[in-house]
């Protein structure tokens, strides 16, 4: 996952192919060699082709048909499914919601995870050895804990916490005197449904990314932090100019993973607001795709939506790479 990892892995391979003299000799297709290739290259490759590439191609093909999903008949209809998808105001709304998620969720999650990771690894006492807060191990377990709960349970749990009449949130708020929150539908109000859903997703994910960043920060030699401290850099300055550039690769990876998770978000949204929320304010593309396929029996159209979702996801990943590159990611410092 880190830059160091790649370099290490690559070295032995390079050494073997570079041996002079070997290149000229005809390849020796011994049984050993052929079975080796079949087992370690052919098998994974065919699994990949059958279970990853061919469904993609099939889905694209189906998106050009009027397949209902419930019989094998389908007629070619060209791009009309795409026209229908892009003139469907509810689908467009679901794209907007998904994009909104892809912008907010990764950013907030990473900011939070980085802060927590910094506190736990290097944010401790400014005297003596570089270390995290006291009881860092405890905080680490606490923050990682939500990640061990399946997403669907998180969704169901929080929908109970936010229940208007019996939920914990309104119970506490009304108990301390905020009477306007009596029966306030957090997940049923058009202004709060999306932020609350985002909060739940972030709550569920932040622990994992914190642990990821902790591992990355631990890879940075503490001498760097010590010298920065001697030069008079504060904690915030250290985090921004030492930690962040050094774990840049990790942040990029996390950003892409989080973006993909946010663009899907199916489980959370289905658990919190299975019908798309007030005025479809939390309806995401994967939910609408599911509805189109299974309740409306329009698999051709649903496949077209799937292709659009894939395109959005890939452009998101591309965009993250591009931004990273433009902001100087390619000449980033590595410690390898």
């Amino acid at each position, binding site marked *: 996952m880190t830059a160091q990892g790649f370099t290490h892995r690559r070295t032995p391979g390079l050494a073997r192919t570079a041996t002079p003299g070997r290149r000229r000799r005809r390849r020796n297709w011994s049984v050993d060699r052929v079975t080796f290739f079949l087992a370690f290259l052919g098998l994974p490759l065919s699994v990949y082709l059958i279970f990853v590439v061919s469904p993609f191609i099939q889905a694209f093909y189906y998106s050009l048909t009027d397949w*209902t999903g419930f019989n094998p008949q389908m007629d070619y209809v060209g791009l009309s499914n795409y026209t229908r998808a892009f003139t469907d105001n509810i689908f467009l709304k679901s794209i907007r919601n998904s994009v909104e998620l892809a912008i907010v969720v990764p950013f907030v999650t990473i900011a939070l995870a980085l802060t927590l990771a910094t506190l736990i690894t290097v944010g401790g006492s400014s005297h003596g050895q570089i270390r995290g807060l006291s009881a860092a191990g405890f905080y680490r377990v606490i923050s990682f804990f939500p990640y061990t709960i399946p997403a669907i349970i998180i969704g169901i749990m929080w929908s109970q916490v936010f229940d208007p009449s019996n939920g914990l949130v309104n119970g506490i708020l009304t108990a301390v005197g905020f009477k306007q929150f009596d029966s306030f539908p957090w997940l049923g109000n058009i202004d709060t449904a999306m932020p609350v859903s985002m909060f739940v997703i972030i709550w569920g994910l932040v622990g994992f990314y914190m642990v990821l960043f902790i591992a990355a920060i631990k890879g940075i030699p503490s001498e760097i932090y010590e010298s920065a401290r001697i030069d008079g850099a504060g904690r915030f300055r250290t985090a921004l100019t030492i930690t962040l550039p050094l774990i840049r690769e990790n942040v990029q990876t996390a950003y892409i993973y989080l973006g993909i998770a946010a663009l899907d978000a199916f489980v959370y949204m289905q658990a919190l607001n299975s019908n798309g929320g007030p005025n479809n304010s939390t309806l995401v593309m994967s939910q609408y795709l599911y509805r189109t396929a299974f309740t409306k029996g329009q698999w051709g159209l649903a496949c077209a939506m799937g292709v659009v979702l894939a395109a959005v996801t890939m452009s998101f990943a591309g965009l993250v790479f591009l931004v990273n590159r433009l902001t100087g990611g390619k000449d980033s410092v590595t410690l390898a």
Partner: protein
Amino acid sequence: MQNSSFGQARIGRRSLLASAAVIPLAGTLASCAGSGAGNTTSTSGSSATSAVSTSPDNPFGVAKGSSVDAVIFNGGYGVDYAQYAAKLMGQQPYAANCTVTPTTTIATTLQPRFNAGNPPDVIDDSGANLIGIQTILSEIEDLTDVFAANNLEGTPIKDTLYGGVTAPGTYNGKFAVINYVMTVYALWYSQSMFDANGWKPPTTWDEAYALGQEAKAKNKYLFLWGKEAATYYQTTAIGSAIKEGGNDVRLALENLKPKCWSLDPIQQVFTAMKKIIDAGMVKPGGSGTQFTQAQAQWSSQEQALLYPSGSWIENEMKSQTKAGFKMTGTPELTVTKNSQMPATALHATAGEGYIVPTQAKNVAGGKEFMRVMLSKDAATNFAKTKLAPTIVKGTVPADGFGSTALVSQIKMLDNAATDVFSWQFVDYYGMNADQLVLWNTFLGGGSSVKQLTAGLQQITDKIANDPTIKKITVS
């Protein structure tokens, strides 16, 4: 569980979990994969069974010892009644071996089997995840011969049924779906609470408003709702508008006419509802409340007086109903006293739709399963254990097996006589999910009658103007 917009919302935690289990499918493109193989059809199965001679005991010619594959929606009614019928099938001369597979997600579970040409022999196509009939109409059997056959007791089945039960299963002239359970749509209330306060169930929206003011004095609401079930209020509004304006209203909606939602009776009902909402007589927060929890606030905590629902409500809330609640139904409201249909007119239909796929291996077995289900024996067993009447008449004794709701259903059906109506467009075109959104907003006081009407009309127009959706004509 019903084949209705009420039914669409019947998703509990279980189906939520089930739908979450499909994420790997729904979330990725891989979901569309895996159909190509399904181009061969196994019609050989049905021709093989047709070689078996038929007899009054075995009108469809079920092969001796053959197996029957029944997939049953596991909702509010469970599957034990279907297992009872399966057991009966084993006791018949042909001794068929019928397996009942329960599922909460019919469409998700069966889509691959339909596509591969290997569907089950009989399906209870119900619940939130039902397969839209529009999608598979050409792939399921016409079931007229089931009603023409004799039941296990030797009476022709068609003579044992309530009137009008074929209508909700008939699509463009094809009787494709046997709706098994008689469902009455009504406003439900606690007879004991009403008696204690000297209240009478309302018959018009004005009376409902007056009742709402009395409820306020007792610190109670008139109505409440849950987010997945907001369209229960649409169902009661449509029922009310049809009673007020007559069949013209129903036909305009069914045939997706332009500006159908702007018809006078519908607007009057919406306006009356808006008055109740604005007066604070609807418990706030419904758009964020899971619907069975909302229903428990009515049946257990008695925070509201009335709840519009289908007659499955008693069974659904069985474990969460206050002791001595005495759940009772009253027909949907009218706007004025001189409405087109009388106040006793009833919105009732048969629900819980059973279908037999044409490509099933044992079509005869599937039809035979339905014949057994419609026997007096199996139908009485259903009424007794589920406290709901099937489409078979005379299975409920006068005491309704001790259920006030069941007694009131039979009473409402008797009072209505021939003034019974229903509609299909919401489920047939799968509109419920989109309409839910509008009703959650409206009931929460977040939109005007005009906005609600415009939104509903937009949903109707979108389907009316989409040439790829096959329309049904209702007359």
